[in-house]
């Protein structure tokens, strides 16, 4: 009886009523709500906008109503030679750049793991390119490649070799972009591989040494299988990033010469913001999104990363 009276009294003394109690009960949801709303706004709205725009002809004139064209924007992609060139260039860039980054990154990580473990300052230096803003990386390489004043041609000149047009040469332009990207992103692979190597168990190696396995066999039969999840994640992240290459191309070549370095991202940017053809740009972006998601899912399943 006393407890009941006391409880009633306490409830009466508390400021506010039912709404306050409801707010206190759902405090966690209320605290998260603004973030969830912002995230939904930033992800859901553009996605829905892209899905609807891809099926419409969107005029740059806001007074002209949107016209439903169904799969028209997608059909247009089949006969667009500039898009086909951009796809080809993107595939070439991604496959060559990511392969080189992986081989170099893994090689460097093995070197550091085996022989130069204590030279931490060297590791830090190696990581610097990754930390520089991409636009600064692009501008730096633009200066390096400059045909008359660039460091590279000065070096060629001193070595008695003929100067090259580098970013201006249709046969070299893609290689110049790849080289800059490899310089920038090899440290990323290196960092992941180094972390992976540091976490390897020592017992299987000791057993292998007792069995007389060569260094190569140890690397092939132990290191690579153990590193497989790390390798897969590193490759997946780099491939997804390489597919949306923009900064380097925009600064170094603007897609030229002769379309030799035009990539998908650059083309989508041009269609959306230079030609102001939002519907077609949305359709291309959507296909790229599906291909990237499809590839990632296949890749994860194939390497059984989900397990």
């Amino acid at each position, binding site marked *: 009886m006393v407890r009941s009276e006391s409880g009633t009294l306490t409830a009466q003394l508390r400021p506010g009523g039912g709404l306050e109690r409801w707010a206190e009960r759902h405090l966690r949801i*209320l605290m998260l709500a603004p973030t969830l709303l912002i995230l939904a706004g930033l992800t859901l709205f553009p996605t829905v906008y892209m899905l609807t725009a891809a099926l419409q002809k969107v005029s740059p004139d806001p007074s002209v109503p949107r016209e439903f064209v169904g799969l028209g924007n997608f059909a247009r992609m089949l006969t667009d030679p500039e898009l086909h060139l951009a796809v080809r260039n993107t595939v070439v860039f991604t496959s060559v750049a990511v392969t080189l980054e992986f081989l170099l990154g893994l090689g460097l990580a093995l070197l550091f793991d085996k022989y130069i473990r204590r030279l931490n300052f060297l590791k830090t230096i190696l990581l610097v390119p990754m930390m520089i803003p991409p636009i600064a990386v692009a501008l730096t390489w633009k200066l390096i490649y400059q045909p008359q004043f660039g460091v590279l041609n000065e070096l060629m000149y001193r070595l008695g070799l003929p100067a090259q047009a580098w*970013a*201006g040469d249709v046969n070299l332009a893609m290689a110049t972009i790849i080289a800059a990207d490899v310089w920038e992103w090899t440290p990323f692979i290196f960092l992941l591989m180094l972390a992976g190597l540091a976490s390897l168990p020592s017992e299987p190696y000791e057993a292998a040494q007792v069995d007389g396995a060569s260094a190569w066999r140890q690397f092939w039969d132990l290191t690579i299988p153990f590193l497989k999840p790390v390798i897969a994640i590193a490759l997946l992240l780099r491939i997804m990033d390489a597919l949306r290459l923009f900064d380097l191309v925009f600064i170094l070549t603007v897609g030229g010469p002769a379309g030799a370095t035009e990539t998908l991202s650059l083309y989508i940017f041009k269609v959306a913001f230079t030609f102001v053809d939002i519907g077609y740009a949305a359709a291309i972006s959507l296909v790229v999104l599906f291909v990237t998601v499809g590839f990632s899912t296949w890749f994860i399943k194939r390497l059984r990363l989900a397990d």
Partner: protein
Amino acid sequence: MLRKLFLTLAIATSALAINGVAWADITILVPSGSEGDGLRAAADDYAKMKGTKVEIVQAPYANVFEKAANAGQTKSGAFDIVLMDDPWIPFFAENGHLEDLSSYFAKLGVPGPDNDFLAKSLSVCRNPYNTGPFVCIPYVGNAQMFFYDGAKFAQAGLAGTPATWDDVYKAAKAITDAGGGRFYGYVFRGGQGNNVVADFMPLLWSYGANLFNADRTKVTLDTKEAKDAMTMFMTLREISPKGVESFGPEDVGRAMTSGIASSSINWPNWVATFEDPSQSQVVGKISYAPMPAGTHAGSSEIGHWTMGITSASKNKQEAFDFMSWATSPEQIKISATRGNPPVRFSVFTDPELTSQPQFRHYPTLMQAINFSTPRPRHPKWPEIENALGIELSKAVAGTVTPNEALKNAQEAISKITNMY
């Protein structure tokens, strides 16, 4: 707990309201570089004088178009004024992104900007070109000139101003031949897109060719005149430095300021750099000439920066007042001293300016503007420029023959414009 939430909301709202006091009265989108810097300085002066807060949003050249087009399409009203490159005007005007200025001039009791503006400068601000209502006011008087090192051209056997592209080629070839792969007689912008198109158009015009026929019903790149222009363009390419296939204006400017190249087409804002001892090894050596002739009289490409009011602006009258003030004779003269070529006759001929060495190119520039040609006025110009730019880039890079490039460009532009 709920009271705390309300308190937080109240503080946030108050903070927004306080910030609102500091929001700009007018916001102007400008490009990076001297044009934008000049207008930024003018905006500061205006704010001090009138108490109007003018916010300047500065972006790289390509992004100005992108931001303005995006703001126009979404009717965001993010910018009250846009400083536009003149070939963009048909796109903005014909898609309803720009305010017709007729009523604002009518309020002042005048039909449009005064006659002290050069006629060609005013023409670009009308849409349709030269006949329609004013949709902007000219601010920076850009038109290409021909830049050359007079002493080197004289040594190469050409005394006086090069009158034709053949003159240019002969002198420039002699300089390149004697340069041993380190010095060149000519340099141009061969970078894909806007770059290569900007340097090709004057040649196209000087051989009597154009992108479209007079009544804009057909693309005319498959003509003998266009082929002649292309032949000269490729001939000049042969005597230019290695790597011009990727050159933009900075690369051309640097080749000139370092003395590596002896002539080029360029915009007048480079004059200040050429005459600046801290940036140039050719101070006082560069001469300025009108565009050389081909088989027809030479004509420069006009590239004025113009101010227009966006249709979604909520401060249109304030924007017009600022534009009128910033383009007055006094302000255009101040803008000229800040490195922006003028658009007014009185400033071009002002003895206080023309008596100074850094403005010695004014008579040539005024002549270049008076005999200039605008890039084809078409709302799809960005797409047209992209298509032509890719084909010209292919020709310059040698992946297709010059004639194939013209044929491909003809097809691509016909498709874009629906002109067959």
